[in-house]
């Protein structure tokens, strides 16, 4: 496999509705920004780029089949090769990795990932119905298909099993909304308190409206290249900042569509097949997990995502990471729900299973130098969702995973101030970050590691 570099990216303004433009034109906003950030003109870039991968989740939202080729056409990329990827909420993450594959394999030197979703074409309750059709249409959807309900069931189990509290979940909402206050791309830029989150309208107990991301219209694009691709672009006048940002780790995992089918494995199987290298090496952690199993915990059940753990372990191995909390400078993860951010802390090994709730309220995942209006007992270690995540930025599904890639790239380039016109959210000396994209009730999960080239 050849080294693959992320060079530039663009994100359209995420909004409840972008009826000012169709999906092709919104995608072009992000695409044009990514090209302009290379300081190269459109025709020159078009002459160099080898192909693309399109990312969008639902044909229902656009009421348009083959929307990908319409974006490809509008971006002026025909007749270059392209294909569409789809994997629910992880579509953007899958797209990013498909582009990585195109370059790592030697098939392409410069390839663009673009993604979009226009969810405003239907009312919120119809949108929820479309999304719920991404659950088994024979067995899950007819019972009362509603994703917030599915995630709420997971978290009641997490609360029962591990003692996680609604206040700990609210910490995630407060953190991500306040982070987004300094992100001009974010859909929701509001300051909330723990009380605001808990007093918001109850959607699916115990998740309130402020525990849940919103539906959005938006697009994002990222340009990746090989060393040869970088040379071609620079020979044509492109300005690519150094140090370069390299994609050093790729991981994916899957799980059963019906969360009722998820296994409940015994301790030995967990330790052998799912524990992180760090967990396996630590006697204290082994005893801690033995204690959980003695109390009845089984893995993953519905409280954990083994797809996320599988993806994380794979990406960490690829990137040579053994202690993610210490070795990652930030993480942009798929916080469709505050509860799923807590679950994902655990899947990604930022803390042990069962400790996601206290971790959320500890301060370790917060940005330094920002007043969150809450008492945080510990200093920031690895900011999670410094952009504001899905909860505040919005979740135009096909764009979301690529939005994370763009924000991660800007963090590693040290260019947050340039793009946000504000450096509040710049993680100081960011050298390595992870992006995490997640589908369904944990069916497809991708983790990609990006880092400054030494």
């Amino acid at each position, binding site marked *: 496999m050849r080294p693959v570099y992320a060079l530039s990216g663009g994100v359209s303004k995420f909004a409840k509705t972008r009826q000012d433009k169709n999906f092709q034109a919104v995608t072009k906003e992000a695409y044009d920004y990514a090209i302009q950030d290379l300081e190269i003109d459109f025709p020159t870039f078009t002459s160099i780029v080898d192909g693309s991968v399109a990312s969008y989740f639902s044909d229902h939202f656009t009421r348009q089949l083959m929307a990908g080729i319409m974006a490809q056409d509008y971006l002026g990329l025909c007749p270059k090769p392209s294909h569409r990827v789809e994997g629910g909420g992880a579509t953007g993450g899958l797209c990013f990795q498909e582009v990585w594959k195109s370059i790592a394999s030697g098939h392409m030197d410069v390839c663009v990932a673009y993604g979009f979703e226009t969810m405003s074409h239907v009312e919120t309750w119809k949108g929820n119905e479309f999304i719920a059709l991404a659950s088994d249409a024979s067995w899950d959807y007819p*019972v009362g298909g509603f994703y917030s309900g599915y995630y709420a069931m997971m978290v009641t189990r997490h609360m029962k099993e591990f003692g996680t509290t609604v206040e700990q979940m609210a910490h995630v909402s407060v953190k991500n909304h306040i982070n987004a206050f300094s992100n001009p791309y974010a859909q929701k830029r509001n300051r909330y308190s723990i009380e605001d989150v808990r007093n918001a309208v109850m959607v699916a107990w115990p998740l309130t409206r402020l525990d849940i991301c919103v539906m959005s219209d938006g697009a994002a694009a990222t340009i990746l290249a090989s060393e040869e691709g970088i040379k071609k672009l620079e020979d044509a006048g492109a300005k690519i900042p150094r140090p370069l940002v390299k994609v050093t780790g790729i991981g994916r995992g899957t799980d059963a569509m019906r969360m009722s089918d998820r296994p409940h494995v015994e301790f030995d199987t967990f330790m052998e097949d799912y524990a992180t290298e760090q967990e396996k090496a630590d006697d204290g952690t082994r005893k801690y997990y033995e204690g959980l199993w003695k109390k009845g915990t089984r893995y993953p059940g519905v409280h954990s995502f083994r797809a996320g753990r599988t993806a994380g372990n794979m990406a960490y191995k690829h990137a040579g990471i053994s202690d993610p909390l210490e070795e990652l400078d930030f993480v942009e993860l798929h916080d469709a729900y505050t509860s799923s951010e807590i679950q994902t802390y655990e899947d990604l090994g930022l803390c042990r299973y069962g400790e996601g709730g206290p971790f959320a309220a500890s301060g370790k995942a917060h940005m330094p130098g920002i007043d969150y209006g809450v008492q945080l007992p510990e200093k920031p270690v690895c900011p999670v969702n410094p952009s504001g995540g899905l909860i505040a930025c919005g979740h135009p599904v096909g764009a979301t995973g690529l939005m994370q890639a763009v924000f991660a790239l800007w963090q590693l380039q040290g260019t947050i101030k340039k793009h946000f016109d504000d450096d509040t959210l710049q993680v100081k000396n960011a050298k390595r970050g992870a992006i995490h994209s997640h589908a369904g009730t944990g069916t497809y999960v991708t983790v990609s590691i990006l880092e400054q080239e030494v």
Partner: protein
Amino acid sequence: MAKLPDRRPETLGGYIVHGVPFPVETDPDSLAFLKQMAPLQIEQDYKITYLHSYGQDSPWFAAASNKKLLASRDPESGYAYATPRGHDMYSGQETEWIDITETPAHIHAFTVCYFGSEEFLPETPYVLCLIKFEGINTLFLARLFEIDPEEPSLDWIGMEVKPRFLRNSKLKPTDVYFIPA
């Protein structure tokens, strides 16, 4: 030879607005001004009737309409699925049907939906739960009744429940629902 039609037949009805504002002349200034025009939006209906087959899972629905709750089981390992699967995910072998109508069951996880997808909005608030059956390895998603949706409590987890069946089957998984045992 009969005269061929030169116009598409005009009909009233369809969109509400007739006479959309537009510059009287298409001079360059007026055309440039169109860049400031707000987007037009129209409604589009989309309704489909699907013929959905339950395929190899069909006996489960036939059983529920006869007030029996089935599950499937790998005949060799005994690994059993409360939500039926035609083939075992570990051995790859075809599963067999078992009757779990009388099997003790309890709530493994739950929520109360106060909002929902359009189809289910009229039913809010409703209780969704995952049921664990004794000796069965996987769970079953169902509705829960005879419990106050305005007073949810984590104490519901672990509560023993029993199935109840619709008198008039709809051939849907909701033909069975649960109530406290």
